């Protein structure tokens, strides 16, 4: 009895999403022999890295009942600033790389600060503020770069980007994974993480318990900006370019991963592990469908359907969880 209840609870939480992921992997392995190979798994890891990194920050924002639509544009702007710094011939390579990292992370955190501050100070839904930032950052990226792509990064930088550990795990996946683990630890084990959940559930109760809820909300947006900055560097590591037109639609992938992972759009409920599994599901789907021979258009339709299906499943899970309690 207790055992089955524990199992149900496990399924109701991250376990359910994990199960979906396992089923997908199993189905693709049977359908396409080329799917379940070490090389392909290495590919998938590389493909999901950037989305995973952005989703870590997105999870914080969505847990607060907000949303950040500007992550894709901010990422483009961050690559442009970082690209300018890294290709600066007057700087020694080490300094150039370091300043590129600082520039990428700094500008996206600044964008996050703007998003958070404006939405908190004037009580504007973050949907609107970040929609504005989406355009501002894109415009700034195009302006600063003169609409040109930046490339020819230092060789050592590019070499790190294509490195794999144990000839399986791509370097950028390790970065994403570390970011995810940090995100998980903060959310699960710190006062800050506790406040994120509490505010997402009932901001007024938290405020009346003597907390300045605005500070926490702004911090969540700044943290989201931080993950975007890291993702920008990862993008440059992977593709060795910085471009003002990249990152279009990244916000939707990050939102999809977060929501598939079980985070509620109204806030207060969800987990980092879930988000990571959500990003894995999207990655496995995209990769697997390609391998079994679906074209781009069909893949897009299936992925879209899966997102909706996951959310429907989630509301059903919630109902099940409620009846479990009674």
């Amino acid at each position, binding site marked *: 009895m207790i055992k089955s209840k524990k199992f149900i609870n496990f399924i109701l939480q991250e376990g359910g999403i994990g199960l979906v992921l396992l089923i997908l992997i199993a189905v693709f392995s049977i359908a396409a022999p080329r799917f379940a190979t070490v090389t392909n798994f290495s590919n998938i890891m590389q493909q999901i890295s950037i989305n995973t990194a952005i989703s870590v920050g997105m999870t914080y924002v969505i847990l607060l009942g907000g949303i950040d639509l500007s992550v894709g544009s901010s990422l483009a702007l961050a690559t442009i600033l970082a690209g300018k710094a890294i290709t600066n011939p007057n700087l020694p390579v080490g300094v150039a790389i370091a300043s590129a990292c600082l520039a990428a992370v700094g500008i996206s955190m600044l964008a996050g600060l703007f998003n958070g501050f404006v939405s908190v100070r004037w009580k504007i839904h973050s949907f609107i503020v970040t929609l504005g930032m989406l355009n501002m950052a894109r415009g700034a990226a195009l302006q600063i770069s003169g609409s040109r792509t930046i490339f020819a990064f230092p060789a050592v930088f590019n070499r790190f980007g294509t490195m794999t550990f144990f000839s399986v795990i791509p370097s950028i996946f390790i970065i994403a994974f570390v970011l995810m683990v940090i995100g998980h630890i903060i959310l699960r*084990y*710190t*006062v*800050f993480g*506790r*406040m994120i*959940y*509490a505010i997402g*559930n*009932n901001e*007024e*109760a*938290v*405020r*009346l*318990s*003597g*907390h*300045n809820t605005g500070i926490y909300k702004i911090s969540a947006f700044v943290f989201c900006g931080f993950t975007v900055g890291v993702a920008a560097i990862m993008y440059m590591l992977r593709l060795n370019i910085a471009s003002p037109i990249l990152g279009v639609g990244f916000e939707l992938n990050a939102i999809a991963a977060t929501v598939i992972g079980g985070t509620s759009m109204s806030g*207060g*409920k969800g987990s980092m592990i879930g988000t990571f599994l959500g990003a894995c599901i999207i990655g496995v789907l995209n990769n697997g469908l390609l391998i079994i021979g679906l074209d781009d258009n069909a893949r897009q339709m299936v992925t879209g359907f899966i997102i909706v299906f996951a959310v429907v499943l989630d509301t059903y899970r919630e109902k099940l969880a409620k009846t479990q*309690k009674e």
Partner: protein
Amino acid sequence: MNDEPILKLEHVTKAFPGVVALHDVSMAIQRGEVHILVGQNGAGKSSLVKLLTGIYFPDGGEMFFEGEPYAPKSTFDAFQKGIRVVHQEFNLLPYLSIAENIFLEKLPANHGFVDYGKLYRDAEEALKLVGFNIDPRTRVEMLGVAQMQLVEIAKAVFHNSKVLIMDEPTATLTSKEIQTLFGIIETLKRRGVTIIYISHRLQEIYEIGDRVTVLRNGEYVATEPLSSLTVNDLVKLMVGRDIGVAYPFDAEAALGETVLKVENLQVQGGKHPVSFSVRKGEILGISGLVGSGRTETVRALFGADRSAGGQIYLHGRQVQIRSPKDAVRHGLSLLTEDRKSQGVILDMNIAVNMTLADLAKVSKNGFLQQQTETNEANRLVEETGTKTPSVEQVVRNLSGGNQQKVVLGKWLFRDAEVLIFDEPTRGIDVGARYEIYLLLWKLARMGKAIVVVSSDLDELIGISHRMLIFSDGKITGELDRDAFDQEKILSYAYEEYIR
């Protein structure tokens, strides 16, 4: 003339878990009269209205409308039968025109297209019935409160409502607007509309009322012609009797020095500044009608809402309270009137809720010490007598009384010095109430300064050392425990409304 009552209630009962809202109420409303309904907070007036309009369903008894059994399934059902409420808060759509609002239930249509010509003609006619001269194309958002009320009334009248229920219609009106409203009520009466009129303002009901029914603690007390009763008679009828709950008052406990002193605190939009103080170990009761400024005052004191001025002193030292954060830092706490939306986080567990106001005590360098938190929560559960299998339990699954104990536990953990309770026992059953009174007393003996706002007069009389009475935003009375007297308190509470 038809002497049969238009509306008749026979032995109607409505109960909620732990509270009986209406008990065995029988009364009759005559066709074409203005029938006044009075009673203290919680007397059952609102429940009665909700039964008549199909929001609540009676647990027992029967209702008759024009001689037929009457059991409305929804507000729409009640409205179609001819019974309608004009609410204090209006149910109008601000961005639609007056005409569209009046005919929202059934817009005149032609093959699915709205027949605007007919709509505006009909609306004009409806507005004429209430003597309201305005273009029906005007958007509702442009109207003032009194005008919106006229639109609501026009809506009711035009749809041939036979019974019109008005719930505190004059609460937000100026005296000139009130006179206009009374004129309209006269007109409606002449047209044969029956009006049920609910009001705290005991003076004004004499201007328009024919008969009055008094409710008390959910029970029917009397129905009399207004001409046979004075205001004092009414107050006497409204005064409740002791419902027999034992109150653990400890008269021996010594009071200490003044902890909190409030001077000229002005609530946002309030009419009068208020001043009061609380001593160590004292329970100060705050009484008054709903909307008399009790809740607004304690919320402004706590920084939950902005105050418009005033000084607050703690142990004689002036402090600035601009937000709940400031208040909590200075040792104040507020247990809000609305427990579920402002007191607890329903979907998080007891431990999280209880430690929320002082996370520093259960964390080190920003990391939560989960073992410490569990231990502390267990201690608080014990101390407050919260009934739960474990501190991991989600608060939503607890009863109202236990949820309230969780909020209490939160402030105990914070070690607040001044505890403000707004309706601490609302919606809580009798057994759990008693436990909460015991906790209040324990806190007082620990030397806390306690302020209790309550609509339950028996409760305040039972537990307070001293009582302040609010009336229309003003403190109209202050009584010491040995001077507590239901009648006196009520007359203070109604003071500003009688004048």
